[in-house]
């Protein structure tokens, strides 16, 4: 068995159809538990007070805003190299999800910033790179809609995705390499000493997993929708050709 079998739209659809409701159920269940735990059963933080409760929304959404683009990059590269339509459609399907995650990260970041820094917005490296990432999501979606030929649209959006990846990676590392900004260092790290304390870390990881599972569920659902749309267009074109012959 090879992963490339799932490049077949029928095989992909048949495989993901039973997975989607489970993924939504698990993702939503984990999100409810994680948010209730974080909101009701964690204490105020020494410096940030109760505003620390925003971490359970801001960090997972920011994490997925970046990683959705990374997933789109991988899918776009597969399209460019191997010309599998499902991968191009998966990249297209992930873009609105990534864009919503970016909006959530920006909105919760602005609210958190106002509460703790006293300002909604500063031209901090991480904030600015996130704003640019949001604009890339908008541009990517607009490009898909603007080009009628789906293969040409997939080619051009793949190039845009590769270019936009610079900003996705910049968003990830901006807080590390430009220490002059207001934004703190990453809240989660592989180095345990740099992480937030356990009392916040545990519900935060649960929310991260929940957002991740919901992202997978949404991308699978939207990819299946894109495949069905593509099949509908192909069948309608075939029927029109048959009518012309008759």
């Amino acid at each position, binding site marked *: 068995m090879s992963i490339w079998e799932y490049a077949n739209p029928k095989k992909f659809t048949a495989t993901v159809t039973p997975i989607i409701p489970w993924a*939504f159920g698990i993702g939503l269940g984990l999100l409810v538990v994680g*948010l209730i735990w974080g*909101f*009701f059963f964690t204490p105020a933080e020494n410096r940030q*007070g*109760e*505003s620390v*409760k*925003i971490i359970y*929304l*801001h960090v997972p*959404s920011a994490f997925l805003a970046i990683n959705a683009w990374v997933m789109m990059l991988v899918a776009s590269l597969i399209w460019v190299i191997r010309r599998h339509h499902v991968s191009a459609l998966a990249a297209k399907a992930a873009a*609105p*999800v990534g864009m*919503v995650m970016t*909006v*959530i990260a920006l*909105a*919760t970041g602005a*609210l*958190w910033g*106002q*509460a703790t820094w006293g300002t909604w917005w500063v031209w901090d490296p991480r904030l600015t790179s996130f704003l640019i990432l949001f604009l890339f999501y908008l541009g990517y979606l607009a490009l898909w809609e603007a080009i009628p030929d789906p293969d040409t649209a997939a080619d051009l959006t793949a190039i845009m995705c590769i270019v936009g990846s610079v900003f996705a990676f910049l968003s990830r590392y901006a807080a590390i390499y430009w220490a002059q900004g207001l934004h703190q260092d990453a809240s989660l790290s592989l180095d345990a000493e740099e992480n937030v304390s356990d009392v916040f870390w545990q519900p935060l990881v649960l929310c991260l997993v929940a957002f991740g599972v*919901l992202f997978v569920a*949404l991308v699978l*659902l*939207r990819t*299946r*929708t894109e495949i*069905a*749309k593509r*099949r*509908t267009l192909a*069948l*309608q074109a*075939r*029927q029109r050709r048959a009518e012309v012959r008759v």
Partner: protein
Amino acid sequence: MPDLGIYAFAVLASYAVTLVLLAGLIGLSLRQWRVVKAVLEKVEQDGQD
């Protein structure tokens, strides 16, 4: 309900914005699937007739 003090607006607005956007995204994605599926089934049906 925890006492959020001066951070009440920021925290509650963050939760409201996030939950509304997530619910909207899930709802729209499911609705889009149902519409596309219905159209596809109709086109497949027409093709068989």
